[in-house]
């Protein structure tokens, strides 16, 4: 039996990876509902390794490329690609974004309009990352929890973890000294009049934002990046920036209903890449930062590898003792 503290994205992903290998797992989650306390609740749910490379290390691609198939076994993955656009006066941002990334093709106004008719005539230059995808984070967490249970895993909700666990996936609650939180503010819009089928990124020198379709006329709009551990509601400035960007994508968003606004804290290490760290007999998986859904599969499989090796070593020691 492997015990895991935290049934957020990292904890559930590890439990799933272990359970699939036939290992008995038990998760302890402080909150009473899956995802209620999880940073992943506020995520975009983009599987966008090539776009993320713009401001992240090469590992987001090497670790992220297995995410598509991994998630597709568990929850619907929409392989519609990412369309990156910029207002005319910020056209230089498209060139810069293109230099830092790969696996895209340049698209002009006509193709942008063909891909997303809602944007027709509004942008004359963009990049299309055809291989990228998105999922619905909250649904994915629920589906992942169900998959763990289906594989025989046990999830104890509303239950504090015991002092000693095998795996700690408690995000900002973990006692790791170099971990910091990067606050992200987001909003969910309901706007059935606007039909957008893939992730859009609006480049802007001050506030780049993304819009991810959630289906049923809903869109997730995100997200700010603030070096802060303040978990309070979004600021007016942040919401103004998000809303302004949505309006710049399509003025039809002016009629959208703002059904939710929220702020989450992303756990991050100094290089903004996730880590597996062993301390006092516990393996910590943490620091998924803004790449949770993209990097959780690779990190969870690595955590499962290490947990099983560790368990086998302990068994050997026990036998030889």
């Amino acid at each position, binding site marked *: 039996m492997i015990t895991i503290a935290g049934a957020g994205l990292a904890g559930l992903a590890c439990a799933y990876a272990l359970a699939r290998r036939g290992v008995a797992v038990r998760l302890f989650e402080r909150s009473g509902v899956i995802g209620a306390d999880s940073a992943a609740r506020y995520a975009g749910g983009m599987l966008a390794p090539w776009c993320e490379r713009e*401001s*992240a*290390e090469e590992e987001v691609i090497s670790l992220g490329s297995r995410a598509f198939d991994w998630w597709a076994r568990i929850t619907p993955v929409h392989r519609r690609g990412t369309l990156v656009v910029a207002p005319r006066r910020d056209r230089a941002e498209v060139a*810069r974004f293109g*230099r*830092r990334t790969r696996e895209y093709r340049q698209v002009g106004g006509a193709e942008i309009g063909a891909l997303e008719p809602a944007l027709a005539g509004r942008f004359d230059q963009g990049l299309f990352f055809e291989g990228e995808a998105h999922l619905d984070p909250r649904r994915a967490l629920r589906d992942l929890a169900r998959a763990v249970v289906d594989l025989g895993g046990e999830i104890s909700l509303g239950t504090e973890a015991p002092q000693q666990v095998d795996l700690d996936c408690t995000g900002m609650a973990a006692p790791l000294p*170099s*971990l*910091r*939180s990067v*606050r992200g503010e987001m909003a969910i819009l309901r706007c059935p009049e606007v039909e957008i089928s893939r992730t859009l990124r609006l480049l802007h*020198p*001050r506030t780049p934002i993304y819009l991810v379709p959630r289906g049923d006329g809903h869109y997730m709009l995100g997200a700010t990046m*603030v*070096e*802060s*551990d*303040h*978990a*309070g509601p979004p*600021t007016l400035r942040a919401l103004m920036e998000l809303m302004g960007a949505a309006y710049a994508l399509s003025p039809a968003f002016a009629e959208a209903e703002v059904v939710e606004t929220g702020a989450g804290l992303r756990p*991050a290490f*100094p*290089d*903004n*890449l996730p880590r597996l760290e062993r301390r006092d007999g516990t393996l910590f998986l943490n620091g998924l930062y803004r790449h949770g859904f993209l990097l959780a599969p690779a990190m969870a499989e690595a955590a499962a590898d290490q947990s099983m090796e560790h368990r086998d070593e302990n068994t050997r020691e026990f036998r030889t003792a």
Partner: protein
Amino acid sequence: MEVYDKKLTSRLFLGTAQYPSPAVLQAAIRASDTDLVTVSLRREAANGSGAGFWDLLRETGVRILPNTAGCHSARDAITTAQMAREVFGTDWIKLEVIGHADTLQPDVFGLVEAARVLSAEGFKVFPYTTEDLVVGERLLEAGCTVLMPWGAPIGSGRGLANPEGLRAMRAHFPEVPLVVDAGIGRPSDAAAAMELGMDAVLLNTAVAKAGDPALMARAMALAVDAGHKACLADPMERRDMAVPSTPVMGLADLNLAEKT
């Protein structure tokens, strides 16, 4: 150079925003050899804190110059400065009072007002200003002993929009440390500012948004140093007439080829 009785070994000041990660920022700080970095205090930091980020900055051992970035009134800037003093334990403050949301041009009226209040409270104020001489005089009267004129709008990377204005400023305030703040896009811009006799350069976006921030930080450091040395070396004047630069060593005998 010396500002507010403190010796700084580097003439390059670095902003800490917009880096891909704190690890990359730390590498850029090391590569730049800077000993002064600016940090913006967003209001969230007072409620919760950016403690993790500040800790990573402190690890580098550089002096921290908090700023009032994003403040649009003297009052707002004063409050932010007071909070920054608590958070960072320093009375140094880079004072920004933004007058215009699009160009982020300083509101020089609010700037002078805030500089007066903060100086009276014991702050060591580094004002982000324009190249206007009268505003410069008012800031010195308000208690500043250093001036930070813009090169171009913040984050624009356009280089020195008004080199003549900066030249006039240097001539008008020969003894005041002048730091070109904002607008530097490339090392040649930084070198040009230093060649004008500026004492230092403060930049952020040009390094943070470069493909290799640490490498660009190094390039900027070299450029600042080159520009500073060039200024000390008293560069030649520009002129229209060509002057041969090859020494004359006798005259060629054009008949020689035929003779042999």
